[in-house]
């Protein structure tokens, strides 16, 4: 077939007559292969649509029928909107903003299904010592907020544990002495993702120990190897350089896998996932601070020179640039922090508000629009989850690369000479 390219026009046309019978066969085979793939993906999509539609109708009926065991299994995205039904029932009017924010923020209990939730331990350190109790104690039998009497009287006010007096008024002075180390939803979710990472990565690592790097990867190892190589070849080497990248690979891989796992776990709508960990500013800030420390500790002399006394510039320009560059040192990790936080939080808000449409219109038929849209956004969020992990790692690598770069001073010196003349 390739030879056809090198044949002159007229000859090509005459040859085409000979080849004619072959071309349709080839094309037909090609088309069959393509249509199989198309049908397969269509089937998957339509099946997931049906599953989602079924689960919405069971959920929507739940206000009448009590939850049964069969209902527990089928609750994908819709599960998050379930407590919204409670709010609607109790208050009569449905507050979208409140419902969405409730799902996004951290909490002491982890909603499982229906009226069941996991009450996570509260760990407090006060002037009277350490204290551990279940967060169930913060709720009375009507699921209303109440005061727990421990060493002090504790109550949750606007999501934070505070010390209150008998009348329920916050004791500001005593509350300042309160250290809250509670295992909240986000912390528990972080433990789960750490557990997953340890199992997956240690399994892959031990396989390398057993068979060495020369033999072909097997099982989980062959799943992890392309991802690790992707981080090395697409992120570390182009940004840091082939010479120095090895030193920073552990750090970059840690960041990449931690962000990726938490992003993906956040997209799972039922129990082991669903916590908004990487959409929590404290989590992203911790990562950003780690990047800040690594970048600035590995920075070389020429990096600091470029910040405080930009070479090859007039002295007045140097004075002008120094504060700007100094601010840049801090804004880089801050932008990392806000980018990840905003992307993941916005994704969660988007999916939740689409599901909330059903409760705003108060009809099951709204789910005909809301659920496909939520699935669509959910698929985009899968892309975003990976993309943000990639971008966070890539920018970290870029900042490290900028800090460790070896500059060619000849260029600047040549510049100076030109300036002198």
């Amino acid at each position, binding site marked *: 077939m390739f030879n056809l390219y090198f044949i002159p026009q007229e000859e090509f046309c005459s040859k085409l007559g000979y080849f004619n019978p072959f071309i349709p066969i080839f094309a037909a085979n090609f088309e069959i292969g393509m249509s199989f793939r198309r049908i397969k993906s269509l089937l998957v999509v339509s099946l997931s649509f049906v599953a989602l539609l079924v689960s919405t109708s069971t959920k929507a009926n739940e206000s009448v029928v009590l939850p049964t065991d069969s209902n527990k299994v089928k609750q994908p995205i819709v599960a998050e909107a379930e407590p919204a039904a409670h709010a609607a029932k109790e208050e009569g009017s449905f507050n979208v*903003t409140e419902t969405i*924010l409730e799902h996004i923020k951290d909490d002491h209990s982890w909603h499982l299904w229906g009226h069941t939730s996991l009450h996570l331990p509260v760990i407090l350190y006060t002037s009277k010592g350490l204290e551990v109790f279940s967060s169930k104690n913060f709720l009375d039998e009507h699921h209303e907020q109440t005061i727990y009497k421990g060493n002090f009287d504790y109550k949750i006010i606007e999501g934070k544990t505070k010390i209150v007096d008998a009348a329920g008024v916050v004791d500001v002075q005593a509350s300042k002495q309160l250290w809250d180390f509670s295992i909240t939803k986000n912390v528990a979710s972080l433990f789960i993702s750490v557990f997953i990472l340890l199992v997956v990565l240690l399994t892959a690592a031990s396989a390398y120990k057993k068979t060495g790097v020369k033999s072909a990867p097997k099982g989980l190892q062959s799943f992890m190897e392309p991802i690790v190589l992707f981080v090395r070849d697409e992120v570390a080497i182009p940004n840091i350089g082939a010479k120095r990248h090895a030193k920073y690979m552990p750090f970059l891989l840690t960041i990449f896998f931690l962000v990726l796992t938490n992003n993906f776990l956040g997209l799972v709508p039922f129990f082991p996932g669903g916590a908004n960990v990487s959409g929590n500013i404290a989590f992203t800030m911790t990562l950003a601070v780690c990047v800040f420390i690594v970048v600035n500790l590995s920075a070389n002399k020429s990096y600091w020179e470029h910040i405080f006394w930009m070479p090859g510039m007039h002295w007045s320009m140097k004075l002008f640039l120094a504060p700007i560059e100094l601010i840049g040192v801090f804004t880089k990790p801050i932008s990392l922090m*806000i*980018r990840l*936080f*905003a*992307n993941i*939080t*916005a994704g969660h808000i988007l999916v939740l508000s689409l599901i909330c449409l059903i409760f705003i219109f108060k009809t099951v038929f709204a789910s005909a629009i809301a659920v496909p849209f939520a699935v669509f956004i959910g698929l985009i969020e899968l*892309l*975003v989850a990976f*993309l*943000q992990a*990639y*971008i966070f790692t*890539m920018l970290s690598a870029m900042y490290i690369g900028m800090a460790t770069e070896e500059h060619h001073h000849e260029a600047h010196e040549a510049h100076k000479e030109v300036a002198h003349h």
Partner: protein
Amino acid sequence: MVVGSVAAIGAGLAAIGAGIGIGQIGRGAVEGIARQPEAANEIRANMIVAAAFVEAVALFAVVVALLGNG
């Protein structure tokens, strides 16, 4: 009430900015692919990354609008 409306306008303006930005990226990418179809994969990967950067700026504004609203 007024604060909420202003926040909504702010989020809308941010969406306009991001729309223009992503539109420009898409145009550039499509033009690039039209000129050099063999580089399509590389261009597409870079396009997605650039689009994510632009989107992030819009999301900064959304966060600010949310905080201002709440």
